[in-house]
């Protein structure tokens, strides 16, 4: 999930007949999971509303004609009130051979109004009654035959995460699509809402077993009560951090570093030395900043273990539906930053990578909220690779320093949030959010998701890392670094109290965020210098890929604001920390 690659393009030769299928439904009913399993496409999914904010198109195999499926963002109605709903109505307006309407079996009454709105447009519909397994566990039984009769269209019970019912669903979709023509439709401005009819249908088909609440039911509620919800949240976050820091450290120290130091690095050095004679080229390849040594050691032996454990934790939290609960508990803290609790989801994703976080803000209800979250993520939330770098740099010296960096990051968000909410026009909407079921994530799909993300990190990190480090090695070996360092000396040495060669971190940090931290590893720094370096790296410019996304999603003016804001924050905070730290050291050494 580091950087999102665009949807794979699907080639259709001119004149070729294809069938269009739209996947629609309320937010968080599992459209994307069904879509991914029917088309074999890799799309992001998680257990909360708004994971799909743009649409993806894939192909369903097995029909006589080629069948294109589009995963439409989740909507509650066809009245376009948010960017995601506008996308949905626009796609529907273009028409489809069939709409697959996904219904949440645990919440049927609330899901039916949209289904009935879609059906009222005259487009053929197939219904997937999803999460029947969760519904059954909650004591809800749905009479599928009656529902089919009342809706006048096929209803297929499914459990998409487990893969149950999907074969049947595919057949129904293909059959329905092939027996109907394309229907371009106009969506009336003021659509009838089918609330009463939905209630009637739900009452007819649903039977709820009266049963005493299970432990899980009670636990679900506990997580959204301040007591014991807040202590539970603290325990969850401590376990999460412990797993990332401890698990990553163990993997690095026990497996990756020994293998790299004893086998990989000597082998590369020997191989290169036998081909390339001593000189600049050999140094660039395998010297102090050798691109083939650091370019492999840094991303794989140092950063990857933390990234891997971070994605384990994040994927688990996403699929469990815990994050929106955290948003409810944190709403009052987040309002201090000028945003609201629902934004906990994109903010948390920012700890993975800023790009999906920024794209994820599309589900936000106001433009101001989008800008606020984007600004905060770009400024003060370290991505997972940078977190890995912080743990490598600080964790071995002092865990307190590591915690300190995160405490400073958090306070900076409050300060920057207060500033931004004054500067930016508009209003942040108050919280209004549906809380998803709390689920135990399905092991198989969890593993798949984690594996995809780790693979993506590797693909996206490795080449920029090697090239960036190669450029740095060239700069160092040719002596250009001396000139650059001299030019930046007042800033780096004067203001921040770092050795001149730390200017390298500032140069590399533009490429990837962790590269603003890692060069400090090779320097012999005091704890204060390590802290200052980390803080500057934290607030410093987001990486270049993030910058392009900000420019693309918002206007250049906002990107410029982010550019200036992060620079000013980085040097102001870093400088202040340096001076205060030095003052305290002098005070106590007297």
């Amino acid at each position, binding site marked *: 999930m580091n950087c999102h690659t665009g949807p794979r393009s699907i080639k259709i030769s001119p004149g070729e007949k294809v069938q269009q299928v739209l996947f629609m439904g309320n937010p968080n009913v599992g459209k994307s999971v069904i879509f991914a399993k029917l088309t074999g496409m890799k799309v992001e999914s998680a257990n909360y509303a708004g994971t799909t904010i743009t649409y993806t198109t894939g192909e369903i195999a097995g029909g006589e004609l080629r069948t294109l499926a589009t995963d439409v963002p989740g909507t509650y109605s066809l009245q376009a009130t948010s960017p995601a709903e506008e996308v949905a109505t626009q796609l529907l307006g273009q028409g489809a051979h069939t709409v697959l309407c996904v219904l949440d079996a645990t919440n049927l009454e609330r899901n039916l109004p949209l289904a009935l709105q879609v059906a009222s447009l005259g487009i053929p519909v197939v219904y997937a009654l999803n999460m029947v397994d969760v519904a059954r566990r909650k004591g809800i039984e749905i009479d599928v035959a009656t529902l089919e009769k009342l809706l006048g269209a096929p209803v297929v019970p499914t459990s998409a995460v487990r893969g149950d019912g999907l074969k049947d669903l595919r057949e129904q979709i293909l059959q329905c699509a092939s027996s109907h023509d394309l229907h371009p439709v106009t969506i009336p401005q003021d659509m009838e809402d089918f609330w009463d009819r939905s209630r009637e249908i739900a009452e007819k088909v649903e039977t709820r077993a009266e049963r005493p609440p299970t432990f899980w039911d009670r636990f679900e509620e506990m997580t*959204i*009560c301040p007591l014991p919800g807040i202590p539970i949240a603290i325990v969850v976050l401590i376990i999460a951090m412990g797993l990332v820091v401890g698990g990553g450290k163990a993997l690095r120290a026990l497996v990756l570093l020994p293998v790299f130091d004893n086998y990989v690095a000597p082998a590369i050095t020997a191989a290169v030395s036998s081909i390339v004679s001593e000189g600049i080229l050999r140094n660039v390849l395998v010297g102090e900043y050798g691109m083939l040594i650091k370019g492999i050691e840094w991303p794989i032996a140092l950063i990857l273990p933390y990234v891997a454990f971070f994605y384990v934790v994040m994927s688990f939290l996403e699929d469990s539906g815990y994050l929106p609960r955290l948003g409810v508990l944190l709403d009052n803290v987040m309002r201090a930053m000028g945003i609201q*609790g629902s934004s906990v989801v994109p903010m948390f994703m920012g700890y993975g990578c800023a790009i999906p976080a920024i794209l994820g803000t599309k589900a936000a209800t106001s433009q101001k909220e989008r800008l606020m979250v984007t600004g905060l993520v770009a400024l003060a939330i370290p991505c997972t690779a940078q977190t890995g770098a912080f743990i490598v740099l600080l964790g071995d010296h002092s865990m307190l320093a590591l915690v300190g960096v995160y405490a400073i990051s958090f306070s900076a968000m409050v300060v920057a949030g207060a500033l931004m909410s004054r500067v930016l026009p508009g209003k942040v909407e108050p919280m*209004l959010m549906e*809380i998803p079921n709390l689920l135990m994530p399905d092991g198989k799909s969890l593993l798949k998701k984690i594996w995809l993300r780790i693979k993506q990190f590797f693909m996206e990190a490795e080449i920029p890392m090697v090239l960036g480090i190669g450029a740095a090695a060239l700069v160092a070996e040719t002596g250009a670094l001396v000139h650059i360092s001299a030019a930046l000396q007042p800033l780096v040495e004067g203001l921040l109290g770092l050795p001149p060669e730390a200017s390298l971190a500032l140069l590399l940090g533009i490429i990837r965020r962790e590269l603003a931290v890692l060069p400090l590893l090779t320097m012999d720094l005091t704890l204060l210098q390590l802290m200052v370096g980390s803080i500057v790296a934290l607030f410093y410019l987001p990486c270049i890929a993030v910058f392009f996304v900000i420019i693309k999603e918002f206007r250049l003016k906002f990107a410029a604001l982010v550019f200036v804001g992060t620079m000013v924050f980085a040097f102001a905070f870093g400088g202040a920390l340096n001076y205060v730290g030095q003052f305290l050291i002098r005070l106590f050494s007297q």
Partner: protein
Amino acid sequence: MITSSLYSANGLSSYTLTAIPTHPLLSSLGLRQGSQVSIVSRQPLGGPIVIRLGQRCLAIARDIAEQIQIQETAR
């Protein structure tokens, strides 16, 4: 029957919604006149109130909850 705001509901009872402010999402989420809700929790420091509506919980900010009028239905 006395009506009061959803935000001031005390938590033990079940309530019927009697007046809803115009907000595009409220009705889509199922908050309509006549809907039955119960209170799950209220977050401290003016945070949102969490209600149960049918099978689902919804978090509603104080600003909005104060505009929603309710009537007690059963104890």
